[in-house]
């Protein structure tokens, strides 16, 4: 259980507010179908656009769907999306980074120049380009964001891998005649994954925002799946007549992103201190 211990230790040291927000977010996401009071997609045109009532505490949207239910279910959409993107991005990034850090030499140079190019292009532009080529769909969005995010992960992974390889206990293994397979898979990879997992939380907020942005632009999650960015677009025509419809998803998204960002900043700080 090498990667888990440092992660738990790190979470214990984080600001309570951020941990609380993230926990609430994760719980909502996991339990969404059981918590949501109404079917998020059930339309009731008779009450369309109605403000808060007892039956619908946050009101309903322009198609008469329960806003609270949609917000809660959107947490799940976002959570799953963020996790998928981070897992894909870090899978690519850690693979590239550890190979560069293990091999060094020209392999390292080549891979890191590719990473430089990847990092030089803004992530949103990469995502838009990938979706433009591959077409609009849920999995294409995940792929697009993963392709935009992996260079950052690769850079961190390489730094961790280089650092790990230079530790005397790794040198001792080399002197003992451990096979490259053992050194890479039994020692280097688990150590790197453990360290990079902590950094991953720092990115979650930005990814959540990117998913909402793509959905807002109509390139991410498609209706009728509830999603915060999607809800914002739906509500945009009513911005002046009924701002509640815009403010609620906007606030929820903001809260989640701020939670992740505070967490990320705390991660960066503890990592910095432990150096």
């Amino acid at each position: 259980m090498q990667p888990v211990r440092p992660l738990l230790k790190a979470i214990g040291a984080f600001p309570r507010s951020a941990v609380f927000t993230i926990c609430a977010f994760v719980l909502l996401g996991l339990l969404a179908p059981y918590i949501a009071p109404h079917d998020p997609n059930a339309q009731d045109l008779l009450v369309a656009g109605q403000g808060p009532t007892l039956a619908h505490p946050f009101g309903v949207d322009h198609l008469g769907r329960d806003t609270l239910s949609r917000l809660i279910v959107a947490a799940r959409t976002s959570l799953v999306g963020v996790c998928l993107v981070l897992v894909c991005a870090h899978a690519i990034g850690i693979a590239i980074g550890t190979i560069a850090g293990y091999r060094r030499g020209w392999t390292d140079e080549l891979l890191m120049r590719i990473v430089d190019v990847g990092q030089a292009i803004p992530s949103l532009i990469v995502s838009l380009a990938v979706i433009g080529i591959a077409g609009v769909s849920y999995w294409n969005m995940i792929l697009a964001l993963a392709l935009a995010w992996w260079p950052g992960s690769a850079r961190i992974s390489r730094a961790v891998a280089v650092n790990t390889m230079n530790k005397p206990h790794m040198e001792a293994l080399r002197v003992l005649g451990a096979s490259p397979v053992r050194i890479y898979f039994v020692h280097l990879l688990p150590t790197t994954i453990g360290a990079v997992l902590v950094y991953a939380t720092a990115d979650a907020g930005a990814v959540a925002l990117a998913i909402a942005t793509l959905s807002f632009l109509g390139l991410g999650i498609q209706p009728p799946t509830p999603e915060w960015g999607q809800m914002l677009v739906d509500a945009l025509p009513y911005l002046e007549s009924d701002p509640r419809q815009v403010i609620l998803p906007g606030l929820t998204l903001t809260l989640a992103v701020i939670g992740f960002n505070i967490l990320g900043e705390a991660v960066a700080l503890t990592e910095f201190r432990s150096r």
Partner: protein
Amino acid sequence: MSAVLEVEHLVTSFPSAKRGQTIKAVNDVSIHLNPGEIVGLVGESGCGKSTLGRSIVGLEKPQSGRVVFDGVDLGSLSGRRLREARRAVQYVFQDPYASLNDRQTVGEAINEALIIAGLRSQTEREGRIAELLNQVGLATTARDRFTRELSGGQRQRIAIARSLAVEPRVLICDEPVSALDLSIRAQVMNLFLDLREKLGVSCLFIAHDLALVRQAATRVYVMYLGKVVESGSSEEVYRNPSHPYTQLLLASIPEADPATERRRNPPLIKGEIPSPTNPPSGCFFRTRCPLSVKDCSTAEPVSADVSPGHKAACRFAGDLFAKRVSAA
């Protein structure tokens, strides 16, 4: 008696911070180790003694020269065969806190070395772990403790047990006791003597503590700026040092008695060790040598016998030796 390990004209250099320049950390060094022998390698920090040790076990890649183990040139092997041949030469690191993985228990650390050595059966490995712990003077109950819970001396014993797991014939010990408390040093030193006795392991003992090397080693090499300046049996070298550098180095050993130490006025080695990027012409030591003459800057001194088996690389080595012998 044929040598178990021979290093011939080894050169290891690193790229310098300045572009295009290289630092020759080990500059044309030839040494050998006989079976069951403890050999000392001494010199100031930065003289390349650790780099030499690391090059022998393959942690640094030498530019040129050969490392011959048991008659086989390690440079001619690669991949799996190289790893297996290298296993016979193990390395004991200076810092026992860094050389063991904090997240492993003692048993796991040694077990892994046994797996690497190709011991397949779990029960056999269990037996070997107990045997190895015993050999380095630890209780078998230490097996389940995490390495981070142990003291420096205990950790160094475990690092040694792990090296012994692959049944090496040579141990390269890089300042193995300098990170340890004074009271523990003697115990760990005795362990090395004990292992030589019981297992016939040869040791290359890298140290800056001259008194320690005198006690343990039968032969000694003195290094300065990447080169061996004097070599011979430790008795000879310590009694009749014939290179000005060795003489100054030995004079710097403090006396145990504070009264005589206070009266003593040891000649100091003047100046700093020159940059290996840009070593002095001719004799590398001439910038700090009390005897240097004009010719020292043109001709590089050759290592010559001053007495059988005792070599020194200085134009005055013969005179210095004769002076020491007549003074005694």
